[in-house]
């Protein structure tokens, strides 16, 4: 029986079922905290832990789903391209916003790490946590960070960003879709962008753009500062 859990169909079916439950709960309650992605992650983790199914077994299907992340990220180019006039008009604000955002992220992580008296390795692991996973682990690795910590921090940040995005938009009165999209992408990379796409076309395009621009700027900043 247990080897059947190692079938890719199991992991995919479980993920879809968990996401479906998440979407239903979100629709029923309308609560921001009932984020379908968060609910799905909690449900799948609970099933694996309760039935003692190893992560590797689930990941036979998980890896198939994970493979779609790269094409999905690539297709953000389509949403950016359809907003080309907006990009031409706003290239300077986009650049300034992403630079300030990347600096704020790295600066505030550094400050908080000092406050919590975390060591050098921990600080290096957390510094790049607001950019997309492959860039973040690359930076952390080349500065003596622990990559597992970086992965956890990047994912936590992304989930937080996608849950909080609607709240932050109201709290800071960011009604403009260009400002909102760039802010979401800068603080919570691709996971936040999945939420931005739900908010609107312009939000999605700007958030996707911020993933790339902030990613590149963070690599440059890490070379200069760390």
């Amino acid at each position, binding site marked *: 029986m247990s080897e059947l859990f190692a079938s890719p169909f199991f992991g995919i079916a479980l993920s879809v079922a968990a996401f479906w439950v998440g979407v239903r709960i979100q629709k029923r309650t309308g609560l921001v905290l009932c984020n379908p992605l968060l609910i799905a992650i909690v449900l799948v983790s609970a099933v694996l832990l309760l039935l003692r199914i190893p992560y590797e077994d689930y990941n036979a299907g998980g890896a198939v789903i994970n493979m779609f992340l790269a094409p999905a990220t*690539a297709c953000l*180019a389509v949403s950016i391209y359809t907003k080309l006039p907006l990009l031409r008009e706003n290239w300077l604000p986009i650049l300034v916003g992403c630079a300030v955002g990347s600096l704020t992220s790295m600066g*505030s992580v550094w400050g908080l790490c000092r406050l919590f008296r975390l060591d050098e390795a921990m600080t290096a692991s957390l510094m790049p946590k607001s950019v997309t996973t492959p860039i973040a682990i690359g930076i952390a690795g080349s500065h003596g960070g622990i990559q597992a910590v970086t992965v956890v921090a990047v994912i*936590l940040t992304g989930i937080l960003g996608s849950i909080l995005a609607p709240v932050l938009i109201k709290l800071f009165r960011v009604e403009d879709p260009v400002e909102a999209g760039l802010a979401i992408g800068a603080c919570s990379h691709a996971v936040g962008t999945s939420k931005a796409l739900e908010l609107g076309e312009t939000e999605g395009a700007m958030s996707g753009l911020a993933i790339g621009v902030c990613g590149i700027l963070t690599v440059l900043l890490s070379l200069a500062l760390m």
Partner: protein
Amino acid sequence: MNIIYQIAIIFSICWVGQIIESLLPFPFPASVAAMVLLFTLLCLRAVRVDHIREKSDFLLGNMAFFFIPAGVSIINYFDVLRSALLPLLVICLVTTVLTFAATAYSVRLTRYLMDRRKKQ
């Protein structure tokens, strides 16, 4: 266009993205390289949005779903979490809020300054 050709176009671009990643001397994700490449091809009109519309709508429309396995992988790192859960959560929360506000307001300020200069 037939969905199978759409998949072929997008996956080929992703593969070239991986080639670019392996050639670059610094860490740069294949997915972002593929995004830049696809954007360039669209601008050059070598690929048109119509060529990949259904597939790209499918991928973008279900983006949150594709992050489930990455999120579940956190259960492999319980030892990391146990040792520093509180600082980790506080750091993630505070920096996310700060980065959001800093980005949004600096975009707003830059656009305001540009508008003012245009009017003068």
